């Protein structure tokens, strides 16, 4: 052994995606939906069930079952677990689960609406820090707009109290917005407030392309959600707010990811190095994809089996839907469009049906960026490489799954 000089230890402040180089653990990061229940009743939400629904609570994983999953996740190399929901703080055993996860050496990201943050919880977070910023969704900067979204009286005050407790104890958090009719006029005020939060190193991200109910449980709610979505023109206006940054990102993105996916359903990183455990013990390749053919029952198996056997098979699935094959499979805007098996599931209950709303947004963006002329549709463009080259000034080089996997491990919708 060659004895090296100091330093013997080194700080690692890099994200998991770049931590492991070529020897990535089987599981890098795990999402855990601790419950589908929520104390808010947001107009746009795809998952919330009533907070005090006893039948739903009964079906949820027990404390020991969740601990068992966390233990296996840590043994597979997982470094970060994201507790989400519903509202994860509704679980009475939240503190127990949180401390357990941290004692396993996991970093914890908590997705919350902050209404249930208590002085006791902030003391816990200050003593045993999550090691990742908490993520808080803000539904409005005023009581009227906030509660028009959450439909719960007192929720605005509760969220603000929670946020102030976190600030007081210096528990790191970031905030995200949701673009909805009641708060669309508040973006400037929201962003100005967000910039005062010490841990916000960039403007807040927004949720705006709302998914329909993930359990396909209410046509009435789905109709409301559809009415709340931004139009394609509004979406382009939103993107153009920071035009230079948007163009730079789009050029980079088009170079790396834009090409027709053909019949392959999965061009993202779903089920590779990560996934999402739902409140009942089903392991999904991603947080949205709940199609029965793509979820793995952890009560009958384990994370390792899902990651080494089940998900790789799922990822080989091919599209069969005629509309998908005629349009999406031949569409070079795949990189600009959010169409994927999960979105198809959320919208249509299938894996391979085009989501017209997402298609409209992708086309509107493509026209805005000069990738398409007014009447053109992307799947009829044969010389798509030429279009990308004209837009970016470079030849497109598809970087496919490796890059997509990194993104998938680190992102999820608000």
């Amino acid at each position, binding site marked *: *052994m*060659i*004895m*090296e*000089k*100091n*330093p*013997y*230890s*080194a*700080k*690692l*402040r890099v994200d998991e995606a770049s931590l*492991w180089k070529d*020897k*990535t*653990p089987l599981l890098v990061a795990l999402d855990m939906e601790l419950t589908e229940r929520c104390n808010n009743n947001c107009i746009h939400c795809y998952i919330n069930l009533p907070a005090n629904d006893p039948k739903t609570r009964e079906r949820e994983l027990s404390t020991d079952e969740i601990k068992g999953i966390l233990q296996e996740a*840590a043994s597979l*190399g997982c*470094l970060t677990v994201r507790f989400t929901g519903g509202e994860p703080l509704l679980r009475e055993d939240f503190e127990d689960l949180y401390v357990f996860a*941290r*004692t*396993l*050496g*996991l*970093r914890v990201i908590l997705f919350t609406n902050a209404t249930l943050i208590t002085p006791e919880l902030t003391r816990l977070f*200050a*003593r*045993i*820090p*999550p*090691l*990742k*910023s908490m993520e808080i969704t803000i539904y409005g900067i005023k009581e009227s707009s906030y509660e028009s979204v959450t439909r719960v009286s007192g929720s605005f005050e509760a969220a603000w109290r929670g946020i102030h407790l976190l600030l007081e104890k210096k528990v*790191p958090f970031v905030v995200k917005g949701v673009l909805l009719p009641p708060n669309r006029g508040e973006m400037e005020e929201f962003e100005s407030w967000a910039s005062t939060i010490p*841990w916000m190193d960039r403007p807040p991200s927004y949720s705006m392309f709302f998914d329909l109910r993930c359990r396909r449980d209410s046509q009435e709610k789905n109709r409301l959600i559809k009415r709340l979505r931004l139009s394609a023109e509004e979406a382009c206006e939103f993107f153009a707010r920071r035009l230079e940054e948007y163009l730079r990102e789009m050029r980079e993105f088009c170079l790396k990811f834009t090409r027709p996916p053909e019949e392959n359903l999965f061009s993202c990183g779903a089920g590779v190095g990560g996934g999402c455990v739902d409140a009942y013990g089903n392991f999904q390749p991603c947080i949205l994809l709940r199609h029965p053919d793509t979820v793995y029952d952890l009560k009958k198996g384990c994370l390792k089996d899902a990651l080494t056997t089940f998900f790789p098979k799922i990822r080989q699935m091919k599209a069969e839907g005629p509309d998908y094959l005629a349009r999406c499979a031949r569409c070079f805007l795949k990189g600009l469009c959010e169409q994927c098996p999960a979105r198809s599931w959320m919208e249509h209950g299938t894996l391979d049906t085009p989501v017209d709303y997402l298609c409209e947004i992708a086309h509107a963006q493509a026209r805005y960026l000069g990738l398409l002329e007014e009447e053109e549709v992307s799947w009829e463009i044969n010389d798509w490489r030429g279009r990308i080259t004209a837009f970016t000034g470079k030849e497109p080089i598809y970087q496919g799954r490796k890059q997509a996997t990194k993104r998938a491990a680190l992102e999820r919708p608000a």
Partner: protein
Amino acid sequence: MKAKVDPDAIYARSEDIVAREIEGELIIVPLVSGIGDMEDELFTLNETGRAIWEKLDGKKSLKDVAEELFAEFEASPGEIETDVIGLVGELLKRRMLLEVSV
């Protein structure tokens, strides 16, 4: 400034951290606040640091640790002692080790 290290003392891994082996890397994850300066800070040890770390069991003095390392590796006793004291100093400063009273 490095912490004072006593070669006759016994040091143990702190319960304020969690040491994990992932894909052959030893990753030290802070459990309580005040270990890393930043919110998402993790730590790793190099090959030398790790060889020493594995012997810091809360039972052996640093002199005994250095002796065991001398028997296992091709380095002079002086070099090994310097490495052991250097690493322990770093880890004490970061509150990853603590001195065990005997």
